[in-house]
């Protein structure tokens, strides 16, 4: 599960970047901004879920509380 997560996130980032560039060329600034925001939110959700898993594991392993 580890390796493909990084490639998934990098892929989303690159695709969003290319899409926003294309949209900027087509004089659609707002949609470019919306696409970037959407990509940001998608990746943020993945990251938050991953960090949540890490914190739960650390909590259980170290017996934090």
């Amino acid at each position, binding site marked *: 599960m*580890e*390796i493909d*997560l*990084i*490639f998934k*996130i*990098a892929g*989303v*980032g*690159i695709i*969003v*970047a*290319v899409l*926003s*560039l294309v949209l900027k060329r087509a004089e659609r600034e707002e949609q470019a901004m919306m696409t*970037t925001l959407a*990509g*940001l939110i998608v*990746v*943020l959700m*993945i*990251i938050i879920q*991953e*960090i949540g*898993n*890490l*914190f739960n*594991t*650390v*909590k259980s*392993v*170290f*017996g*934090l509380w």
Partner: protein
Amino acid sequence: MVENILMIIALCIIAAILGKVLEKYNKEQALFVSIAACTIVLMFIVLYLSPLISMINDLFARTGTGENYSQTIIKSLGICYVTQLGFDICKDCNENAIATVVELSGKVTLIILAIPLLEKLIFFLTSII
């Protein structure tokens, strides 16, 4: 762990390069790649730490002291572990103010954790003199 160290190093190098590639287009995605890489490697390491921790607990149990000192040590290790992650991620985002606040909160938590031990030590010392 020994046979996986190469995989971890390769993973981190790839994540660093991908981060650099992404930095040119939008900075946030580059940050996300580095956060993801840190989280994955830390998750991997913490899974290897749990047998180590149970071994430490056994060693401390063998010393015969009724008190459970090893639990405090392991707890502080966990706090340092997570605080360091938060501190470095905040520094990556060039948010030094937030980073110092995270570090300060980690230190305060550690001090609070260590207060009972200090108390026992002082009582013990005064009882000797």
